[in-house]
């Protein structure tokens, strides 16, 4: 317990230095901004702004990037409630009841409970990270190469399990990511793999440029196909507070949402989006009168909004303690660590305690800032929605292009972004979700390295992965997950065939 207090004190001493406060502020405001604006997600934004953090100390860079992530879920809920438009995937379910509340003139209450619920969830999940990360890192420190390999397999499988759409496609996207990750010099033999004698490729494919192409460029191309449709709420927002009765209704939902989010955030593949969906389902199921949902039930806003913030934050746990990203945003965070020459893994907590605890404390500070600053700023965010997309997307494109260039001050990275923009668009059209590609890319070199090391130690005996109990457990869980996700897929396909035969 003293340790926890000591660690958090260290964290706060890092988080409240003026430079870190400033960047937490910039990050959370930028995050809110992109959360408000539909058509650009947190992954693209973090990639876009990553080059601006190269010159910063690593902890400051991560504080800002983390701010973008949780800021985005705040901003996304604002537009979900006011404009019936989820700015982010994580606020899709907030639309259902939040917008109905706004139409009934209760927008103020909805916004207020969303913000307070998020703040509460943020406080709790910060404590969850502080309490659970050190023991988890201790366990991870005893891992050998075989355990690491199995852990990564488990991480990839769960990310696949939780991806949208076809399982097989998600598996293939992940494998392609692994392959792209090992482009460049092989650390063991010095062989430059798949580099086509291009000097820039010897260091590997540029992570930032790849993400920009895959997400930002492809997102823009996809958005340009759709015509704009934004129905702005014309009535003024009621006062930003909730009544005692509303609070009593919402508070249990906040508690449940926080618990669900904290739990699901830790799971590989989990995070803000999954948490909010799960929370909404739970609230609806346990409600005395489920028919109120979709018609402005405050629990339908309070639960998911708390859950998505809790999930966004606890998804840092596997990234910080194991070095294994659980979603695309965390993959970017690992990328940022590597750019700053910090090898992600359980040793980060002991070798860079200021970074570890500073980042955690900054999340709490950032959440508080968001509530204090954003509630009064809601009017401005809504006005921003009036900026037409035709002015917005060339700007995103320009920032990405210059950002890709600035990674190595080299135009080659911009070509990489173009190539991945093309691939990303094709992926979207073919129903392949691009996020697992990033996970694969980050884990590719680590997976190969640990596979090699495990087999060197066992003299080429593959049973090493199933004879070590911890490794076996993880592989069994991974296999069980695969069976669980594949089984309904087979059933569904057969159903489709059957219905076609009948008709």
């Amino acid at each position, binding site marked *: 317990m003293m340790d926890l207090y000591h660690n958090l004190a260290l964290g706060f001493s890092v988080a409240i230095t003026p430079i870190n406060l400033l960047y937490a502020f910039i990050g959370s405001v930028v995050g809110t901004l992109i959360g408000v604006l539909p058509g650009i997600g947190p992954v693209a934004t973090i990639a876009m702004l990553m080059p601006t953090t190269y010159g910063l100390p690593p902890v400051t860079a991560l504080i800002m990037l983390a701010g973008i992530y949780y800021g985005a879920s705040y901003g996304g809920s604002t537009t979900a409630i006011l404009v019936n438009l989820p700015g982010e995937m994580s606020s899709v379910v907030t639309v259902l009841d939040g917008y109905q509340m706004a139409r009934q003139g209760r927008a103020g209450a909805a916004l207020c409970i969303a913000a307070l619920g998020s703040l509460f969830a943020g406080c709790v999940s910060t404590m969850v990270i502080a309490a659970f990360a050190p023991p988890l890192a201790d366990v991870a420190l005893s891992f050998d190469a075989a355990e690491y390999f199995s852990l990564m397999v488990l991480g990839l499988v769960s990310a696949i399990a939780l991806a949208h759409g076809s399982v*097989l496609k998600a598996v293939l996207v992940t494998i392609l990511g692994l392959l792209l990750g090992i482009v460049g010099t092989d650390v063991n033999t010095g062989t430059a793999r798949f580099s086509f004698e291009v000097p820039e490729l010897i260091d590997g494919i540029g992570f930032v440029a790849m993400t920009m192409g895959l997400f930002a460029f492809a997102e823009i191309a996809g958005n340009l196909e759709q015509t704009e449709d934004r129905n702005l709420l014309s009535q003024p927002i009621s006062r930003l507070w909730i009544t005692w009765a509303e609070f009593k209704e919402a508070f249990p939902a906040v508690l449940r949402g926080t618990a669900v989010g904290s739990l699901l955030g830790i799971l590989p593949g989990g995070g803000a989006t999954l948490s909010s969906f799960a929370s909404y389902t739970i609230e609806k199921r346990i409600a005395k009168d489920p028919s109120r949902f979709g018609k402005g039930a405050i629990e339908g806003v309070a639960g998911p909004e708390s859950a998505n913030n809790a999930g966004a934050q606890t998804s840092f746990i596997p990234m910080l303690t194991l070095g294994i990203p659980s979603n695309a945003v965390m993959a970017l965070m690992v990328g940022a660590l590597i750019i700053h020459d910090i090898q992600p893994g359980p040793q980060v907590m002991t070798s860079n305690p200021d970074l570890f605890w500073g980042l955690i404390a900054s999340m709490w500070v950032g959440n508080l800032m968001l509530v204090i600053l954003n509630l009064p700023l809601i009017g401005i965010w809504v006005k921003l929605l009036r900026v037409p997309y035709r002015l917005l997307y060339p700007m995103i494109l320009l920032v990405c292009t210059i950002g890709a260039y600035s990674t190595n001050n080299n135009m080659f990275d911009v070509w990489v972004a173009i190539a991945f923009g093309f691939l990303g668009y094709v992926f979207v059209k073919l129903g392949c979700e691009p996020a697992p590609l990033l996970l694969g890319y980050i884990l590719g070199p680590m997976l190969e390295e640990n596979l090699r090391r495990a087999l060197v130690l066992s003299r080429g005996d593959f049973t090493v992965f199933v004879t070590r109990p911890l490794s076996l457990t993880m592989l069994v869980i991974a296999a069980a997950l695969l069976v669980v996700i594949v089984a309904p897929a087979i059933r569904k396909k057969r159903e489709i065939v059957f219905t076609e035969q009948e008709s």
Partner: protein
Amino acid sequence: MHLIRNPKDFLSGLLFMAFGLAALVLSGEYAIGVAARMGPGYFPRVLGILLLGLGAILALGGFRATTEEQPVWHWKPLFIILLSVGVFILLGERLGLVLASTILVFISSLASDEFSWKEALISGLIQGAVAVVVFVYGLSMPLPVWPVFITGIQ
């Protein structure tokens, strides 16, 4: 397209098979080694085989019926925005950031249905100026501000 009833699965299967095949062909020159001492060619070959095999299964699934909607391709906006970035690459280091940014914004604006000459030009010039302030003066990025053939500064 009567036989291929699910082009999404069929085409993505082919795409992954192509990547797998490329991985196998290209890693042909790297030593495989043995499991106890893996060469640089071991892991890529495994991934290549997986991509090829699973890609084939996916592609074969394309012959099965589906209720999924068919993909509709809109190449024009994609090509316009990628072209605008490509032009930036080719001209950026010669024309300088102001003009290259303006050109990028102008060309990419063409991808929108609501394109207007004046608006795109003005927005491009403003963003070019902001880009110079932020990236060249703020983050000291080594790109020329003005055309090299006028200023003579590389």
